[in-house]
């Protein structure tokens, strides 16, 4: 038999264009599905467009000041309004929520993937999904009527004894319900399931080979987790946190129940006060005139802000997933 290595030294042959003549059904199929896919893009653009349209008068009135003004007062004789106070409130609540939620999520995810038995694992995975399906309204309701009063003595105690730590400082005689801290706490409960399920998913993709290797080398379970699971899941943790942040930023009902919704820059998080964009909007559903436009502008800011957060989150997560394929 001839050995077909004759071309070994030659340049490789020319590539052939592969031309498949798709059937008519396939052409229609492609068009229809592409149409479906594009709806989402269109929808987002349309949302952005209409919000911009409605907020234009307010933005024109306030100019750049809209982003640098804390107060939101459309009823003064020269209205002064801006999104800064609400935005900082939104971010504060979201950050508090994420700071509380992420450690717990990581622990819970670890428990589900690496500590629980198979049966419990299945059960918990389902439970986390169920938790994620519980409306934020109910969390808000619970936080508002049950948790906040329970937390109040603790914050009071904290502010009484640790007011020298800036974080825990409060004004004299301040009201301690309706604080950013309590809102953040409740929102953290809401983002918990989401972050947990994302982080769990990433943890669950940890190559079992590496986990076994760590154990086979005489590592404890913690050693295994620390040297394999956590480094592998780092991207997932960050991504989950970002996504949780996105959720927390947009959370409406709970914060509208829990915060007084007065835009200001809150430095004393234990004390009543503050607003978030979404909560403020929910509060002022019937506003009209310039106020409505200004509120729409605030909504637009929230829209863009969460989009940015979610974009980065999904990119981080997809990065971390593609990283998972490296060793495959």
């Amino acid at each position, binding site marked *: 038999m001839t050995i077909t290595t004759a071309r070994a030294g030659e340049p490789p042959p*020319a590539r052939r264009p592969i031309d498949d003549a798709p059937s008519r059904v396939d052409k229609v199929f492609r068009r229809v599905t592409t149409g479906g896919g594009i709806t989402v893009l269109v929808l987002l653009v349309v949302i952005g467009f209409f919000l911009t349209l409605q907020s234009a008068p307010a933005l024109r009135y306030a100019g750049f000041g809209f982003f640098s003004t804390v107060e939101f007062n459309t009823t003064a004789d020269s209205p002064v309004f801006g999104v800064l106070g609400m935005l900082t409130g939104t971010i504060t609540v979201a950050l508090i929520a994420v700071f509380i939620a992420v450690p717990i999520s990581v622990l819970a995810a670890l428990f589900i993937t690496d500590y629980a038995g198979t049966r419990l694992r299945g059960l918990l995975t389902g439970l986390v999904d169920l938790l994620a399906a519980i409306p934020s309204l109910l969390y808000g309701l619970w936080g508002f009527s049950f948790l906040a009063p329970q937390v109040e003595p603790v914050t009071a105690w904290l502010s009484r004894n640790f007011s020298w730590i800036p974080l825990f400082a409060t004004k004299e005689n301040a009201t301690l319900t309706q604080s950013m801290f309590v809102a953040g706490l409740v929102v953290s409960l809401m983002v918990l399931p989401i972050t947990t399920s994302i982080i769990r998913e990433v943890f669950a993709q940890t190559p079992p080979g590496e986990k076994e290797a760590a154990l086979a080398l005489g590592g404890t379970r913690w050693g295994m987790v620390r040297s394999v699971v956590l480094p592998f899941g780092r991207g997932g943790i960050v991504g989950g946190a970002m996504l949780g942040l996105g959720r927390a930023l947009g959370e409406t009902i709970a914060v509208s129940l829990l915060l007084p919704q007065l835009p200001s820059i809150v430095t004393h998080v234990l004390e009543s006060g503050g607003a978030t964009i979404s909560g403020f909007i929910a509060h002022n559903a019937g506003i009209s005139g310039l106020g409505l436009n200004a509120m729409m502008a605030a909504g637009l800011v929230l829209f863009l802000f969460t989009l940015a957060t979610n974009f980065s989150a999904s990119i981080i997560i997809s990065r971390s997933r593609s990283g998972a394929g490296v060793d495959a």
Partner: protein
Amino acid sequence: MSDTTEMSTVDAVDGIDYLDAEYADGPAASTREVRLIGGPPVGAATLESRDVGAWFGDRLVLDAVSLLMPAREVTALIGPSGCGKSTFLRILNRMHELVPTASLAGEVLLDGQDIYADGTRAQQVRLRVGMVFQKPNPFPAMSIKDNVLAGLKLAGLKCDDKDALVEQSLERAGLWREVRDRLNAPGGALSGGQQQRLCIARSLAVRPNVLLMDEPCSALDPTSTRRVEQTIAEIGHEVTVVIVTHNMQQAQRVSDHCAFFLAAENEPGRVIEHGPTEKIFAEPDDPRTYDYVNGRFG
């Protein structure tokens, strides 16, 4: 189930005759003529690759493979892992182009016609060149019967007697006797070896001219392997079979021809040697072939 009465008479495989009103003259169900409407020409076809090359992205993984796979014979492709056997096989029925980064060079002639010629529809090629995969993959949402008929439904063919086709195909895949009482059980409920034979039956139902098999037994236990090998030997007389295998014994047992692929490090895979199976195994021309078939590597 009213077909149990009739089932009792279908012992064709054991040589017992049975009557059939419409197809009265057929001695065995599997021999009844079932007409497919709208299908491709029936019968084995010769497959020939000319100077086939393949890339994934910019990496050339297969270079200048010219191979003749004669009609009604079993050609085995052997070689160490990663030398491009699967890639070559997938080029033969235009599955290669499903990988987004893949491209290729050369020609593949099916009964003299280039399957990559302009205007040729991949769908049509695949209808004529069937494929069985390494891991049995029956459609889990379908019953055994529907699995066999899936090809018809998917390719939009019609058939004048579906039950007969099912029986015939399963018979040819050597599965009829094992499943005839539970044709409506889901395809996923079979054992691995049965599933693989179901996949073979599914491929046979659309009457391909060529059947490609990519390590069809590597996921199976020894008994199932035996059974599938037997099936291959039987259908080898009717359609052209190209099989990839890692198992030298298997290649020896089932194939008429053999092609040895090898890829040196950082080089594309090439056909080192091909010829009748006995020759490749007994007195290969190339020392690398000798080493390989004698288990010196891999």
